[in-house]
């Protein structure tokens, strides 16, 4: 049964590394925030599985609770920031700041 949790965590870590593609080449900012959010949620699970593998689940669960709260607050703060500032869409008038915010200039330049 221990090997089952070990293989499960290996598979989860492999799928989390696949999600790094969306962080690197995501067309908009929200794609990157989304992928970071999913990886953070899965790392809670990885922490609990590591606690099972080391037979110290009562210590790792506290770390997982703290990590989950921080991840949720970070995602909400980033969403609220980009909701207020509207930097997702590149416009011609002010291009310096907003091109940095989108990362790559692949979005419509009207």
């Amino acid at each position, binding site marked *: *049964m221990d090997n*089952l*949790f070990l293989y*499960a965590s290996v*598979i*989860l870590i492999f*799928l989390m590394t*696949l*999600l790094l*593609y*969306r962080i690197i080449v*995501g*067309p*908009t900012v*929200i*794609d990157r*925030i*989304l*992928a970071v*959010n*999913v990886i953070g*949620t*899965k790392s*809670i*699970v990885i922490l*609990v*599985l590591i606690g*099972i593998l080391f*037979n110290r*689940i*009562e210590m790792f*669960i*506290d770390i*997982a*609770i703290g990590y*989950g*709260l921080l991840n*949720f607050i970070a*995602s*909400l703060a980033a*969403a*609220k920031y*980009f*909701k207020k500032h*509207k*930097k*997702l*869409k590149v416009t011609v008038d002010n291009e310096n700041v907003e091109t940095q915010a989108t990362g790559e200039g*692949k*979005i*419509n330049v009207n």
Partner: protein
Amino acid sequence: MLINICVVLLFAIIAKYFHNPMMTTIVDGLIIVSLLSGILFFLATCIGILRFPDFFTRLHAAGKGDTLSTILILFASSLYAVKSSHYVDKTTLLSVFKILLIINFIFIGSPTATHALIEAGNNSEVEPWENDEKGATEN
């Protein structure tokens, strides 16, 4: 809340018939089925995030599959925390209670974060994907 009551009742039944060999088999089956279905849902989430054309559809894939797979795998690990302790004591009960707390928090927090991200994308007027050459080649 109903899920919490059902889970607590399930753990009480497991703690009562703890040394019954049939109960051990049932708990093993529940652990394996929950863990494998959680990994399957996370595989579907990963494929959806990587392959969908627009970020609204990507958020659709992430908001459902991520929450459900996290809940299933944490449920399997809480069952294993009950099963692996040879007698149910206060430390095990506290660990199971904390895992149920994480499950409740994920169940509320993850769709909220996805909703906030969708609102941010909708508010900044990014055009959604449409099934023609203009929308398909844009991303």
